[in-house]
């Protein structure tokens, strides 16, 4: 597999404090890399650096061999689609309008209206995510899980090769977490996206990740397959909490042991 996104010596500092790095990282074409780690480990900072939203204080990031710095914001957006964790509490738009906005990097400034292919991309994204029946609804009326699906559809309409998701299951109840995990699994298997995903949820990382990156205090503690990372000793070092493996195998299922 070829390398799609690579970071060398990547670091981000806030004043004198180093929040992230230095870190070396390769994301392979077609894989799903899940970044796991405790709060404040630098997961979101890492994702924001990789998407070019945050300018790294040190190091180099290259997408498909081209330095991220040499690309404009629009050029990056045609290659990398991001679903951030934090969004405004209210977005006064309809589902189809939000998904259509995902087409922005493909539109020219002089164009008055979106083209046929833009609407086709919107239809396709709604179909893949399975929310065609929601297209005319105001997004503020939807449940948290449906809303997350809308923003994932918008990212798909962007038609970027790399999909970056920050905590996609945050604030969702068990049912919606399950549905969203199923959706992401469908996406991973049904499309040829490369995915980078940051999550607290070890089981989501285990289900989707081809490789896991354990991030601790801004540094890579370990990288490996789910079975290599999701071991009680490593997790205890990572989270300073006790985990139990309730089902082993290639994609282990873990449970946090609150009694320990």
């Amino acid at each position, binding site marked *: 597999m070829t390398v799609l996104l690579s970071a060398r010596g990547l670091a981000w500092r806030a004043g004198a404090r180093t929040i992230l790095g230095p870190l070396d990282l390769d994301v392979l074409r077609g894989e799903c890399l899940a970044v796991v780690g405790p709060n404040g480990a630098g997961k979101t900072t890492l994702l924001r650096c990789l998407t070019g939203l945050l300018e790294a204080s040190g190091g180099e990031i290259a997408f498909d061999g081209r330095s991220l710095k040499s690309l404009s914001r629009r*050029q990056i957006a045609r290659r990398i689609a*991001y679903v*951030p964790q934090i*969004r*405004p509490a*209210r977005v006064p*738009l309809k589902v189809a309008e939000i998904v259509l906005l995902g087409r*922005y990097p493909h539109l020219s400034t002089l164009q008055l209206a979106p083209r046929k292919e833009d609407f086709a991309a919107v239809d396709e994204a709604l179909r893949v995510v399975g929310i065609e029946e929601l297209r005319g609804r105001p997004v503020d009326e939807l449940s948290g899980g449906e809303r997350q699906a809308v923003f994932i559809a918008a990212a798909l309409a962007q038609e970027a090769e790399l999909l970056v998701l920050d905590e996609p299951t945050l604030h969702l109840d068990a049912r919606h977490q399950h549905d969203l995990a199923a959706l992401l699994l469908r996406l991973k298997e049904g499309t040829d996206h490369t995915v980078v995903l940051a999550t607290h949820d070890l089981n989501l990382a285990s289900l989707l990740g081809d490789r896991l990156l354990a991030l601790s205090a801004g540094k890579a503690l370990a990288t490996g397959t789910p079975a290599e990372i999701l071991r009680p000793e490593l997790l205890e070092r990572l989270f300073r909490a006790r985990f139990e493996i309730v089902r082993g195998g290639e994609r282990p299922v873990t449970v946090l042991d609150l009694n320990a």
Partner: protein
Amino acid sequence: MRPRTALLLLLALWIATAVLTPLVGSQPVRLADVLRGDPTVTTIFWQIRLPRILLALLGGAALAVSGLGFQTLFRNALAEPYTLGISSGAALGAVLALRLQGGSFLGLSIVALASFSGALGATALIVGLALHRQGIQTSTLLLAGVAVSLSCSAIILFLQYLSDSTQTFRMVRWMMGGLSVVGYTEVLWLLPWVLGGSAALFALRWELNLLLTGEELAASRGVDLARLRRLVLLATSLMIGALVAVAGPIGFVGLIVPHMLRRLVGHDHLFLVPACMLGGGAFLTLCDAVGRTVMAPAELPVGILTALLGGPFFLWLLVFRRRDS
């Protein structure tokens, strides 16, 4: 209502306003007399009424479009064209010119030119701040605007304290805003700024729509936030600076018209920008028509009327028509 239908209705309202309001006022004018060429009526119509209505149509558009731009840019429903201290800057310029006695230059009064400079000065300060620190937050800009505004007000009060009562009266009167003009100098001055500024915001409609989904998401879709912020600030301040220079600070239109129109046409800037141009113009023109007639032959400054009529109506909308929030 579909946005297109709403836009057509607004266009009809705009045309009706433009055609009918020149006929009302302290001296009613009949269209037949204008067409017949009655000299008094012709002068009133062509030299006083029509320029004033055109100024109101343009000014209302400038206020509503800038209010819309600021509300979207700052993601704040309370933002209005004067949020960044532009009216205080303009008032400071005008007050200085009134204190030092005026004159005229290129057909525009020195007071107008001084207030235009003041408006641009206040904006330049804010935009300079935004440029100086690239990563500046929009909330910081908002606070900086408040600081500029308060500083200018303090200097204005100081200047009034130093002035005699005639000068003070003229300063206060200027700050009430008004649209009394004779001839077309002011209209021709305002036209390019308003058309240019509105066209700029219309061209940025995709970016403004994306801002509704949050700055982070907009940036990840390819919007250059720093550039967008600069362009919106520049377009709105030139428009508003040019208006304040000839009409003084007219409040409330920039705050309430975009809110009313969002209820009518929705949140898509493709429709909202033209809707604000039409709706803002019609609203200010109607307010001014009322101001010209209720106390005839005296007239009420339009700034007082926009707040008097707009305030209660807006409250009614907020309290009794809370459907979309």
